[in-house]
């Protein structure tokens, strides 16, 4: 499956994931302390500058990841122009854009496996509640179940179309869920046969 990590290798990819996450946390706290449009614009400029040296493909990828934010930016901008408070609107928009762009940058430059390793490390204090091996297995199982489940959904939808001129819609949901539950039971049996999860 496609992850959001950028295929363009940058020096940022080589930094340890935990360090990047810590830097992101500090940056986000600073963002919420800043309240002047100029300061926030500077912060956003720093984030943008961190994207630029790695080429157009990297920047375009980052641009795509910001797309879901535009409707909100538009709504906030229009609202603040309407109540004639452009300064307040600028603060909200700049802070949100900088926070999301910085977080996206960390995601784009960190491999999924490195990020999951940090999560597993962060979960070690909870080892009594969530044993580390079960957590790692849960990550792997879920990633494996996603294509399995979408294939199952597609098969059942195709079978429905072969029988009926109507659109399958929600009708495939129950058979797909039942089939998936059976698959999960088989996976559980297979795990138990291989010595279980402990």
């Amino acid at each position, binding site marked *: *499956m*496609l*992850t*959001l990590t950028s295929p363009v290798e940058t020096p940022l990819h080589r930094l340890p994931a935990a360090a990047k*996450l810590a830097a*992101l946390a500090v940056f*986000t706290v600073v963002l919420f302390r800043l309240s002047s449009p100029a300061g926030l614009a500077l912060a956003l400029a720093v984030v943008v500058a961190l994207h630029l040296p790695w080429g157009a493909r990297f920047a375009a990828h980052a641009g795509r*990841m910001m797309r*879901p*934010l535009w409707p*909100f930016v538009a709504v*906030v901008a229009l*609202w603040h122009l309407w109540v004639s408070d452009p300064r*307040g609107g600028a*603060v*909200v928009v700049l802070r*949100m854009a900088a*926070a*999301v*762009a910085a*977080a*996206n940058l*960390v*995601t*784009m430059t*960190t491999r*999924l496996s490195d*990020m*999951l390793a940090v*999560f597993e490390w962060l979960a070690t204090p909870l080892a009594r509640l969530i044993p580390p091996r*079960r957590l790692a297995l*849960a*990550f792997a*199982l*879920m*990633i494996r*179940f*996603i294509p*399995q*489940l*979408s294939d199952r*959904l597609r098969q059942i939808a195709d079978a429905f179309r072969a029988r009926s001129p109507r659109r399958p819609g*929600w009708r495939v*949901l*129950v058979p797909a*869920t*039942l089939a*998936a*539950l059976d*698959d*999960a*039971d088989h*996976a*559980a*049996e297979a*795990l*138990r046969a291989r010595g*279980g*999860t*402990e």
Partner: protein
Amino acid sequence: MERSLTHVALFAALVAVLGLVPQISLAAGVPITAQSLGIMLCGTVLGARRGALAVLLFLALVAAGLPLLSGGRGGIGVFAGPSVGFLIGFPLAAFTAGWIVERTTLAPGLAAGAAAIIGGIGVLYAFGIPGMALVLQKSLGEASFIAMAFLPGDVLKAVLAGFVTQAIARMRPGALLSRA
């Protein structure tokens, strides 16, 4: 033990797959996906604790960089955006829905439908709307106005969650861990 693990992983994957199903736009141009249906089902089928764990597992993989949120969103950035409140509300919504199904003696379908409305809409919006108000610096009233666009779709999904849970109760009673 193994079964509980595979079912948690399965429902985390179900939330992801339901978010990938092409979205339909309502008349007002509001995109609705089945993702919140997945959240409701986590609670009504798996019960409070396992349901919340499944949703947390899903959120962990989203944060780790899989584009699994509806609309292909993912990464840590989504936790800094306007929908952060909804993301925080997801596991609590599943927990509440599961708790209600576990504690009532109503027929599974009816209990699940009611639980999906209370947990998947009530609790979810109780976190989502303040989250949106905070990030966009709007009042609660203005934020609820935006969120209300999703209400008709979510009510429909709560009803569906009831039907699906009912079907599981009838055809795979052993898999309905919330009533096990």
